[in-house]
């Protein structure tokens, strides 16, 4: 909401600066966003008096003037047709810069020196008017008393400072100068005055409304509807001060009729609408819901299809306007209009909002109706507007208004308990303070003598429709007390006993996993939860189960991630484009899949995503330059399981459907699949401009969270007797997996086999087999094993291997 400080001062005698006011309003909950100076630059331009004006000797259209600007008399050559001696004008002297950026320099025009420029409205940024220079006596009251040298900003009484105030949805009453003037009065303890209506020079003898029939269907849709008429009106440009003021608050001046309705809405918060009285058919105005599928062409020329929920203004035959949203083209004021029927009304906020949103017709009027307009101000606003139109358009205003007030405003009477207020705010609430605070807020307050508990009955004014409950009143007390004056106390948090020993919060567990990953040299990324259906299609993910977004911001954000990989690939792509090739990324985020059983129709599962690409080591020397591979990623996963005190996972080539991976490996804990890993297929990696292998894994953290809750650290006694180690080298054909060999060894070894360590894998060139070397460690808990025993164990395992598998030892 833009408020001009000058305009505000018409209601409240505030003498301070715009900055101070901004802070004070902010501290009352009306946040200052910006102080604008719409006419910046005009403060330096002087008013000049044209003391001489003659024809240019060598030009038909130029005049040579002498202009008194107070400090000196300037020679100025002027091209405007309307320049004349005795005019008061605004002068841009040499060295000044006009709002449009034009810098004024000393010039010679056809031989005549010119030391400045006499300005038009457009050149001063006041309007688009450029027919000639701006003559102050013609635009402003001659009584204004201009003097040469006076700053233009002051002489034109421009609205120099405009505050942009953010208004929260509950404070519809502050969407007006009047509303903010009330808050200003509250902040600085100043009186607020509503100027008395000025009937001077207005003809109030009109009878055009006589015989017009007004009906409102129900109080629910429109508690108050009021009409006034102005006949014999001349549509014309508004006077300069009105036009300039509207411009200062960001409104374009259109015509006296339109400008007045806008002006009153901005000033008093009451939206108004003008109809052409002569276009009303059948001598009747009705306020009623539209019938279903009825159409109306609105002011903007669009045909709108209505429903029974839209409130319409109708004459005897048809809808002539969409109440509170937009007028109808069939009753619009045009150049030929001579009689205006002016509407001031209160409409149901929820109805207006539905209509404005459904038809996508946001407007200043609808915005105010949605937030609640003061029913107590409608009559005053309508009458003030009618008076202004009558005066500006030289028309005749109807003597009285035609009114239907089916439901006069009833302020609620709200009980307020002192003890509750004190408990909620945290400071003592003295009676004098409360009484004075509510007085300043325009509320009536009465002590409830009958109650046992000390309490009051508070009746808010009609403009504070947001005050409905005790809590709302307590907020008002706190606001007047000053939020910033409250003490700062840190409360004791009580811990009920049943919270003892509860499970570790999931967030904490995820943090531990993140710490593990970053400690191992992985970098955490965070990607958007949404990606595009197209990306998922490219990865070959099934359509089924995807969660689409109904109103996405863009196509590439129209579905929630059913896997973390699309996001991780985006991070890969971005980093490769930035020249970062050694990537070890991780992300902890949610998979979204459809689930009809879920309360939200979606099953959310948190996963850990890992992605490795490029170099194995962070620096070249002293490391060997090598690329990461499957074993690097697998090792990380094995380490995580150990870290979480879970069993060693089992890895097996996947039957699962992860069509973007080859190879693709499932990870099992016992029989439970907890995730998968693999290499991103080359065509997909290539699309991210990755030329080297991209390895990725996703682990179900929700499952791991559950599993690790029951995992316990159980101390095992340290071994007392020494181990005996034996190596075994197995020549096995390609295709025979290490795990198969290990299973046979384990199956054919005694309990004294403590562990098996692979110590070498030799893959000779041009051979169809590879050599695995395992180191078997035997240890007996009760005695020292003999060498011979260890030899025997190894031989037994070797024999089993050659017996059961096509291998050689």
């Amino acid at each position, binding site marked *: 909401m833009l408020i001009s400080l000058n305009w505000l001062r018409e209601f409240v005698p505030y003498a301070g600066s715009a900055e101070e006011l901004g802070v004070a309003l902010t501290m009352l*909950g009306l*946040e200052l966003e910006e102080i604008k100076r719409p006419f910046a630059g005009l403060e330096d331009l002087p008013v000049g008096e044209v003391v001489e004006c003659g024809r240019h000797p060598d030009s038909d259209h130029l005049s040579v003037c002498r202009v008194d600007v107070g400090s000196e008399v300037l020679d100025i050559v002027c091209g405007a047709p309307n320049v004349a001696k005795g005019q008061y004008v605004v002068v841009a002297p040499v060295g000044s810069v006009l709002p449009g950026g034009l810098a004024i320099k000393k010039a010679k025009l056809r031989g005549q020196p010119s030391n400045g420029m006499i300005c038009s409205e457009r050149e001063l940024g006041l309007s688009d008017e450029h027919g000639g220079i701006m003559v102050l006596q013609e635009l402003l009251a001659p009584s204004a008393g201009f003097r040469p040298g006076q700053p233009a900003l002051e002489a034109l009484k421009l609205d120099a400072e405009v505050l942009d105030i953010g208004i*929260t*949805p*509950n404070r519809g009453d502050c969407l007006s100068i009047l509303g903010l003037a009330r808050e200003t009065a509250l902040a600085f303890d100043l009186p607020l005055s509503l100027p008395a209506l000025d009937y001077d020079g207005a003809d109030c003898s009109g009878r055009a409304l006589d015989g017009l029939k007004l009906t409102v269907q129900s109080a629910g849709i429109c508690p108050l509807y009021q009409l006034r008429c102005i006949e014999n009106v001349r549509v014309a440009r508004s006077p300069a001060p009105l036009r300039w003021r509207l411009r200062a608050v960001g409104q374009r001046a259109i015509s006296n009729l339109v400008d007045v309705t806008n002006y009153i809405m901005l000033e008093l918060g009451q939206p108004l609408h003008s109809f052409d009285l002569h276009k009303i058919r059948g001598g009747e105005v009705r306020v009623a819901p539209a019938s279903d599928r009825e159409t109306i062409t609105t002011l903007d020329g669009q045909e709108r299809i209505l429903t029974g929920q839209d409130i319409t203004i109708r004459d005897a035959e048809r809808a002539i306007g969409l109440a509170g949203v937009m007028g109808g083209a069939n009753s619009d004021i045009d150049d030929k209009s001579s009689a205006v029927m002016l509407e001031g009304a209160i409409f149901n*906020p929820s109805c207006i*909002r539905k209509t404005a949103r459904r038809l996508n017709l946001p407007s200043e009027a609808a915005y105010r109706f949605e937030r609640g307009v003061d029913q107590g101000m409608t009559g005053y606003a309508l009458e003030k507007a009618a008076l202004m139109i009558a005066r500006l358009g030289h028309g005749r205003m109807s003597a009285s208004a035609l009114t239907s007030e089916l439901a006069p405003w009833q302020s609620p009477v709200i009980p307020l308990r002192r003890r509750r207020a004190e*408990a*909620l*705010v*945290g*400071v003592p609430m003295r009676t004098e303070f409360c009484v004075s605070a509510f007085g300043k807020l325009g509320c009536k307050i009465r002590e409830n003598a009958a109650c046992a508990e000390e309490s009051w009955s508070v009746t808010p004014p009609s403009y504070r429709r947001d005050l409905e*409950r005790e*809590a*709302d009143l*307590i*907020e008002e007390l*706190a*606001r007047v007390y000053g*939020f*910033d004056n*409250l*003490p*700062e*106390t*840190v*409360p*004791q*948090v*009580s811990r009920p006993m049943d919270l003892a020993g509860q499970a570790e*919060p999931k*967030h904490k567990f995820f943090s531990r996993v993140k710490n593990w990953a*970053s400690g*191992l*040299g992985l*970098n*955490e990324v*965070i*990607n958007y*939860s949404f990606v595009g259906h197209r990306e998922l299609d490219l990865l070959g993910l099934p359509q089924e189960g995807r969660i689409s*977004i109904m*109103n*996405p*911001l863009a196509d590439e*954000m129209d579905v*929630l991630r059913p896997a973390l990989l699309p996001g991780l690939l*985006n991070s890969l792509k*971005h980093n490769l484009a*930035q020249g*970062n090739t050694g*990537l070890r990324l991780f992300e902890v985020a949610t998979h*979204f899949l459809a689930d009809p059983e879920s*309360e*939200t*129709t*979606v099953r959310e599962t948190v996963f850990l995503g890992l992605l490795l690409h490029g170099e194995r080591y*962070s*620096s070249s020397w*002293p*490391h060997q330059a090598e690329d990461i591979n499957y074993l690097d990623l697998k090792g990380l996963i094995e380490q995580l399981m150990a870290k979480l005190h879970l069993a060693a996972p089992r890895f097996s080539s996947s039957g699962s459907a992860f069509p973007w991976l080859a190879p693709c490996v499932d990870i099992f804990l016992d029989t439970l699949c907890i995730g998968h890993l693999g290499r991103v297929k080359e065509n997909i990696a290539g699309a991210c401009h990755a030329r080297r292998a991209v390895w990725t894994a996703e682990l179900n953290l929700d499952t791991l969270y559950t599993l690790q809750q029951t995992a316990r650290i159980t101390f095992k006694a340290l071994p007392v007797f020494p181990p005996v180690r034996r190596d075994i080298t197995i020549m096995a054909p390609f295709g025979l997996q290490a795990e198969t060999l290990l299973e046979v060894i384990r199956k054919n070894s005694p309990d004294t086999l403590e562990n098996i360590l692979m110590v070498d894998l030799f893959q000779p060139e041009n051979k169809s087999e590879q050599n695995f070397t395992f180191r078997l460690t035997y240890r007996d808990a009760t005695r020292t094993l003999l060498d011979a025993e260890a030899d025997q164990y190894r031989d037994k395992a070797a024999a089993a291997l050659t017996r059961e598998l096509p291998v050689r030892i």
Partner: protein
Amino acid sequence: MSLINELESLVGELEQNLARAVSLAELEELKTAFLGRKGRLAALMGKLKDLDAGARPAFGQKANEIKQLLTAFVEARLQDFKRKREKESLLTFDPTLPGRLPWQGSAHPVTLVMDEICGIFERLGYDTVSGPEVETDFHNFEALNFPPDHPARDMQDTLYVSDGIVLRTHTSPMQVRAMLARKKPPVAVIAPGKVYRRDSDLTHTPMFHQIEGLLVDKNISLADLRGTLTYMARSLFGQSVRVRFRPSFFPFTEPSAEVDISCIMCGGKGYIRSKSGREACRVCKTTGWLEILGSGMVDPNVFKAVGFDPECTGFAFGLGVERVAMLKYGIGDLRMFFDNDLKFLQQFA
């Protein structure tokens, strides 16, 4: 030469040889040649059995003396060599060679800030909770006192999955879930998470992070809220930070307050001293204040919606994590959070 003499001659011979030895390997060789299992001393000792029984003890004793002597000589020489080698190696040691660097891992700045804030509140006795990112209209709006067709819904542009199912627009539905789960006061939770709005420009991303806090107990007041948030702000930004508390509006709190902290760039002065005098602070745009969160006393309608006694007292607050991270680390561009450039990420190691 008697065996005793032979034994004694070993000493001189070894001494001479040791003096000539120039490498550790030669020393080791000499040690083996004289003291090894098949060395010279062992060979002489082997002749013990040829001696008269009466001469044996004297010879044995002598042999042991000689063995000790020889061992001492060899060990002394070995030590000399080792000392020399160590000295030499110090000469070639270059402490400035690059280290064998492990990868520089990092947590995302959003994670750092979330964990820090959760940590502050956990120390105050709050529990960290989580909740779904896709929410029902009930949890995201209705229970939080956003009536349908109310302008308050305009404050948050919503992404919909279907009618009545939304991507949560704030972390506040976790308040609702926490109260429904606990069934009665006291409730003290802190709830971090992702939130979504239909909004994307220089200063808005369609996904961002918030942290919600909720305390419901006996006699919780606005002053408690103010104190708690000041405590948090000072824990995050330092003891000297000033906190400004001003009225605002949120449907689910009444009274509602927004919280500003004194600008951490200019110290709340609005201007920064520079070479050319003073310069407008670009972080707070000369206001001296930075808005960091919204808060308030839980609205009685919210208590009603979760089945709590509306006479309860409690406060709630919600804070933008990226906003805090930007202020804390001096990050200028919001979009960097989701570009995930390694050069960005690794700064938060």
